[in-house]
């Protein structure tokens, strides 16, 4: 293939950035979910959760 | 409103920073560039208008970030926000005062710089004219940044980053109008008219957006 470096470079870079963004978003979500779980465990209940419990 | 204009002019002469700093910065830029391009006078005169325009653009940034921050810090902004006079008008007048205090001196000084840069008379005249018409647009765009800076603890570089990209169209048409006047073959008027249109456009958009930002940042 002619110009293989440029073609694969372009695809490679695009894949790299897309993967990095995906991973970052996913890891961020996981961290947030963990924090929420920790808060839940420490006894601070969500208000909405409390009201739905009440119902 | 004239009262506001006069007060801001007075302040820019008395308070720190000072109106002269823009002109001096401008001079510094023009003093340094020849060292970059070397003694090639033809080249110097060719890029002259561009350098003058870039200098004016950068010089306008100095002090712009404090345009509304200073008002917030002493509580004046609160009173301005409360008035019946439309906030847009207040912002417009403050922009005008800032322009008169910092950019107008540059416009007036630009022939001097043109001589330094070995520019022809036409080039000098064209530069001066385009600067006169185009530099208010820079101030108006900058006002948006300044209004945003009110929400920031301190202004500094961030404001310039937000503002500079928006000024690019002004720069493009300002410089190309100048070149059109000097070299041809393209006519001078179309880019010059676009420059005027840009200034008018930002004279509306800038104060409106700045007023919007100010309304939304007060606390």
């Amino acid at each position, binding site marked *: *293939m*002619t*110009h*293989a470096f*440029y*073609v694969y*470079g*372009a*695809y490679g*870079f*695009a894949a790299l*950035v*897309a993967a*990095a*963004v*995906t991973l970052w*978003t*996913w890891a*961020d*979500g996981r961290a*947030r*979910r963990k*924090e*929420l779980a920790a*808060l839940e465990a*420490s006894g*601070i209940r*969500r208000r*909405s959760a409390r009201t739905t419990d009440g119902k | 409103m004239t009262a506001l204009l006069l007060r801001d002019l007075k302040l820019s002469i008395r308070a720190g920073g000072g109106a002269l700093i823009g002109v001096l910065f401008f001079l510094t830029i023009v003093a340094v560039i020849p060292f970059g391009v070397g003694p090639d006078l033809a080249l110097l005169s060719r890029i002259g208008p561009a350098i003058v325009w870039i200098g004016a653009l950068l010089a306008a940034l100095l002090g712009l970030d404090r345009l509304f921050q200073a008002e917030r810090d002493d509580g004046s902004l609160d009173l301005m926000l409360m008035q019946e006079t439309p906030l847009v008008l207040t912002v417009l007048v403050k922009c005008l005062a800032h322009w008169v205090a910092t950019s107008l001196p540059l416009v007036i000084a630009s022939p001097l710089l043109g001589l330094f840069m070995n520019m022809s008379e036409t080039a000098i005249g064209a530069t001066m004219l385009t600067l006169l018409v185009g530099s208010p647009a820079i101030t108006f*765009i900058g006002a*948006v940044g300044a*209004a*945003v800076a009110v*929400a*920031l*603890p301190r202004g500094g570089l*961030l404001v310039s*980053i*937000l503002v500079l*990209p*928006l000024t*690019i*169209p002004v720069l493009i048409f300002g410089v190309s109008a100048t070149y059109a006047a000097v070299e041809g073959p393209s006519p001078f008027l179309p880019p010059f008219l676009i420059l005027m249109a840009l200034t008018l456009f930002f004279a509306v*958009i800038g104060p409106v*957006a700045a007023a*919007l*930002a100010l309304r*939304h*940042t007060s*606390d």
Partner: protein
Amino acid sequence: MSETSLAITKFSDLANPTRFLALAARILPWMAGFTALCFIVGLYLSFTTEGDYQQGETVRIMYVHVPAAWLAMMGYTIMSLSAVGTLVWRHPLADVSAKAAAPLGAAFTLIALVTGSLWGKPMWGTWWVWDARLTSVFVLFLMYLGLIALNRAIDDPSKAARVSAVLILVGFVNIPIIKFSVEWWNTLHQSASVLRLDGPAIDPEFLRPLLVMAVAFTALFLTLHIMAIRNEIWRRRVAAQRRLAARLASREG
């Protein structure tokens, strides 16, 4: 609960963050699957179709470059729409949407810049020229970064959102500049051949993979955007609950 009086009733299902989360949980797996499928098909097509007689194999770069460039602009458009939501309806979800789109838009802009650069070297013989199209995309990238920085510099999130919204809207002037730069200034860059008023002027051989990749990129963007919005909602929930906890603790103490 605050009556965030939303003018558009159609959106009112999304108006409530809790409902948004429920919806996101339902559709995210499907969107992720769809994205993956599109990428598989798109990548297959882009490596099996023929090369261009003029551009050779490098034409394959188009299948990532062009969608990424479109998404870079679309990301900003989404931010602008969210900004309108923030300023007009003061809708908290619009704040979150604008904030979440910025890093994604920046990432896609970066892809467009770098792949364009990688295409430019063989086609124009240089990595970078300061032509209008390229520079305006570069400016878009800087604007994304500036907005991210601005958002981080203001720590009251709703204030940050409102301030950013104003700037986002002012910065929207750059989008038409990007789009029409090739027509307004004669530059090295290709002029529009797909998104034209008179229909695409491009060989279907190239159009097919391009469109599939475009759909794949869009799906990826939307998936990530929804995920990022969800993360941001969670982040604010955590902050709100932390504050509540601190307040309760100090009241007991």
